[in-house]
Every structure is written in structure tokens, then in C-alpha cells.
């Protein structure tokens, strides 16, 4: 599994071009190369934790920074996320459902469990969304080995009305 090799390539390319992470064509191009590299080693990375986490991360960045629309080559195939019994594509421009389905295979056990638990929750709808803390500088990408940082659990986030209220009890 060459996930570390792909990550090093990505970091070097980012550092040499001086591009910052964000919705820019230059970053999308580098992200696209990174995604291609990861895909090329997919077969040997079946079940490799860091690989699967990295793939998810790259796809989320692709979505966060709209690389499918900004350009930088065609977008990496999105991972369909099962939501309430329906497959919902993260990105409407998926290149091939079959390819995505294959990728789906490599995750399906985890995601399905989460989603099905979503199906069982009451009115509080969890989301199946993973995203990263944006302020991390590019050169300290938390992608290698066990050093993966994910920001929010894909399930169990309050989805009701955002209006909040406060109660406090203090003093004598």
C-alpha cells in the first residue's frame, strides 16, 4: 500500500508550488493528482486504515473546496453515502457509479452501520459527515499513519432548529 508515498508527493507538490489549501485551481490540480495516486494503489490498500481515512479526507476536501467546479481536472469519484436508505452521491459529477460502488464496498460495513443507526434514531437526525479543522497549515497535514485528525463524528450531531436558549443558577 503506497499511501505514504502518495502523501509525501502531495506535500512536496504543495510546498514547491507554495499553494495554500483552499478553493483554488492550483490546489485542486494537486488534490487531483493526490487522488489519482491513491486510486492507483487502492487494490493493495484494502483494509488499510490510514488509506481509507486519507481517501475520505481527499474526497471531503474536494467537496469543501468545490474542486469539481473550479477545475483542476475531473473530480475524483465521490463516495456515495447511504442516507436514510437511499444512496446519495456527494458530488453530482461522479465519473462512474460502478467505480464508486466498488469504493463503497471497501467502506460499506462501517458506513452502513452508522447510517442504519441513523435510521433508528428518533427526531434527532444524526449526520454522516466528516470534515477537518480548516486552520491547519498545509505542511503539517495530519494524514500520515495514526496521525489522522477527524473533526466530527459522522453520526449523532443535533439537527434540530438552531435557536438556542440559556439557563443559569448561581450565587445565593
Amino acid at each position, binding site marked *: 500500500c503506497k499511501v505514504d508515498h502518495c502523501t509525501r508527493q502531495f506535500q512536496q507538490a504543495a510546498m514547491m508550488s507554495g499553494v495554500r489549501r483552499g478553493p483554488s485551481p492550483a490546489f485542486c490540480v494537486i488534490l487531483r493528482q493526490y487522488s489519482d495516486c491513491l486510486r492507483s494503489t487502492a487494490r493493495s490498500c484494502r483494509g488499510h486504515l490510514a488509506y481509507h481515512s486519507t481517501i475520505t479526507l481527499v474526497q471531503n476536501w474536494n467537496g469543501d473546496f468545490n474542486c469539481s467546479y473550479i477545475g483542476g481536472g475531473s473530480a475524483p469519484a465521490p463516495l456515495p453515502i447511504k442516507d436514510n436508505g437511499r444512496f446519495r452521491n456527494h458530488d453530482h459529477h461522479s465519473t462512474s457509479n460502478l467505480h464508486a460502488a466498488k469504493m463503497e464496498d471497501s467502506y460499506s460495513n462501517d458506513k452502513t452501520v452508522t447510517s442504519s443507526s441513523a435510521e433508528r434514531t428518533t427526531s*434527532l437526525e444524526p449526520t454522516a459527515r466528516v470534515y477537518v479543522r480548516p486552520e491547519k497549515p498545509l505542511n503539517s497535514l495530519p494524514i500520515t499513519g495514526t496521525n489522522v485528525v477527524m473533526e466530527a463524528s459522522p453520526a449523532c450531531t443535533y439537527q434540530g432548529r438552531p435557536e438556542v436558549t440559556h439557563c443559569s443558577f*448561581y450565587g445565593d
Partner: protein
Amino acid sequence: PHLVTFNGDFQTCKVAGAWPLIDNAYLAVSVTNEAVVPGSAATATTKITIIIKGGSDCAPERTYEAAVDSVPASFVDGSQWGGPLPPGSSALPSSALEHLVPVRIVDKEPGRHVEIHARHLGATLIVRQVGRYLTFAAKLPRDIAQQGAGREGLQLCVKGCPASERIDVATVLLGTGHGRHPSMPSSGRFYRSQTSESPSSLVKGMTRDAALALCREYNLTDYYLDSCMFDLMTTGDPSFSLAASRAQSDYLSLLPDAAYRLANRTWPLGASGSS
């Protein structure tokens, strides 16, 4: 204690003993209050119990208990977080895991200040020990907070204190005596202290001017200024000014538009300068 309800009512209550602040299908918070000065109706909180109710894959049952000089940074079962882990994260270090689960405790100041985050409820709960007593603050989505509002039963945060338990802060601050609650001290009266080292010593409530000077040091405004003065004039214990300051800062940090809800009043009720 001073209560700010979910509806934004500011009340001062006796409520000696154990009382429920929040009690709905998702969350239960109860407090135990003891008289701060014998002979006075004023009480303060010495114990807080919080139960995050289970019932779904997302919501692990967790119970938290805090008492004076015992504000742990863990639930009663010793855990500091709970709930399902996101797929593929089990290999992460525990310090990273805590950020990913629905329920977790954050130790803000060991033994003094903890925050409990229940992401599946959108809730943040704050427990502090200030001086010899505890304080509590909560931020909840309105539809969670109002859940069960129509039901029978007490929920001080939802319905406020029963009328029989309310104390009129103005009678103390105005010091008019007229309509003053018989057990309320006018400024400068003496009470036998339970909180000082030598129980036999007498507590002298602060005078209005001394209380105002101390409360002003914390830039308190509006009701928080009144409650601070009430506490200092009742007990003479300066730590209550810090408690009011912490309560105001929690209010400002937990509610996005809190600053607009507080009047920028820097004179207490009834003071000549409060034009």
C-alpha cells in the same frame, strides 16, 4: 440562588433542599441548596447532579455529580466521554477520540470548572465552584429546552421558581424596609455564619456602597449587578461577586445575542444614579 430561566426571566429564589432545574426526555439536572446564613432565607448550591439520558444509539446514558470541593472531570462511572466512534477512528489516540464522540467532559480548570458537551442534543453544560458554592449554566436548543414544558412537575429552568419561593431582590437593594421580606437583612445586619472557620463568629452583610464597589470591579451590569449586590449585602462573602461575574461571562459566551439582551445598566436597582 439567582435563576435565569430559558425564557430569559431573572429570579432570586430560596429553594432550600433538592430542586430539579431541567427534567425532560433527554436531560435531567437537579441541585441541592443550603442556607448560606442561618436565619436568612438566602441559599446557595452545594450539589449538582446531571443525567444525560440514553435511549438511542447516539446517546449513551451518563451521570455527572459535583459537590463542594468535588468537581470531577469525569462521569460517575469514571468515563470522560461516551457514544459511538466514527468508522475507522478506533485506532486514533484517545485525545483525538474525545472530540469525535457525542458526549464528553472538558476539564477547564481542575476541581473548579468543567464543561459537558452533548453534541447529539446540541447542549453545553457548565459546572463551576466559586468560593464555597457551585454554579450551573446551560445552553440548549430551544426545542430541547422546552420539551415537556407543558407537563406537570417542576423544572426551574423552564417554569421558574414557585411564587412562594421567590425573593424580591429590590427590597434588599432599596433597603426601604417597606415590603422587605422579614428574613432579609437590611445592609449591615449581623448573622451567625456557617461558612466561616469559626461557626460562632457573626457575619456582617456588606453595606450598599461596599457591595457596589466590589461588584463594579467585575463590570457587572443589569441583573447580574443586582444579584451581586444582593449576595454581598446578605452574606458579606466577597466570593459571590466572582460567582456573579462568572455567571455573566457564561451567559455572554453561551448565548449568541446575549449582549443585546442585557441592559447596559451599571447602577443597581433603586440607586439614585439609575436614571
